[in-house]
């Protein structure tokens, strides 16, 4: 039980780090496409790690299913809206930033 709890904590720490780096990327990256990269990847993985950690600590099946369901929902929603944002940005001819 203790091992489960501590590995859950480790997962949560990793997830929080992902979230923080996603925010840093959102602030630092130069254009809309690169910011989309930061947002979708870092946040989905971060939420996945947090969910895994909490599921490891919860010790109940119903709660685990619920947590995984939330993650799945966020995953579907954010990947779909990421593609929509990117494709309509392309449609509006917003040029990607390239290395000078």
């Amino acid at each position: 039980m203790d091992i489960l709890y501590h590995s859950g904590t480790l997962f949560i720490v990793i997830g929080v780090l992902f979230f923080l780096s996603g925010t840093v990327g959102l602030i630092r990256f130069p254009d809309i496409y690169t910011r989309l990269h930061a947002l979708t990847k870092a946040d989905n993985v971060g939420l996945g790690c947090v969910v895994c950690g909490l599921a490891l600590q919860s010790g109940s099946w119903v709660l685990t299913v619920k947590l995984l369901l939330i993650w799945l929902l966020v995953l579907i929603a954010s990947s779909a809206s990421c593609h929509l944002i990117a494709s309509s940005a392309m449609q509006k001819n917003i040029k990607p930033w390239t290395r000078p």
Partner: protein
Amino acid sequence: MPNDNCLSTSHTLATLVRRSLPRFAIFSLLWYALAGSDALSWVIGVPAVLLATSLSLSLASSSRLNIRVAGLLHFIPFFLYQSFRGGIDVMHRALSFRQCLDPGLVAYTTLLPEGSARIFFVNTISLLPGTLSAELRGDQVTIHTLDQGLPVWANIQRLEYHVAALMGETGEGRENL
């Protein structure tokens, strides 16, 4: 787009039952997960599940979604590993002292058939390390990559292979090229 021709055969009822039963089971499980084991919750649950089943039947496209279990078992670890790598990649680029970005656009022609397989493929591209699906026209996918030094093509072909195995589309594939 509603399609009526699939229900116009003589065994309409059998088809309907066969199509709706798995959905019904999935939505019932979902309700159980959401509402817990309280028996009284099914007063709302049963109508909700029925409504969800009929709604999902009427919204379902003509291409039947047949997910292979073996493909799913291969896909989930692949997906988890790849998206974790994607997260690490973005984290490294965001936190590194110098900005190490070299973004660019890559064109890719997918061999997956029109419909749910292609949509699924395009949406999962965004979770691979360093790639983001920017546009889809027919079978042409435009991919935005964070670093042109990454093996984008190889990664995407592997993803395409996995999606094809997941959706049961193997056979007509890469070897034609």
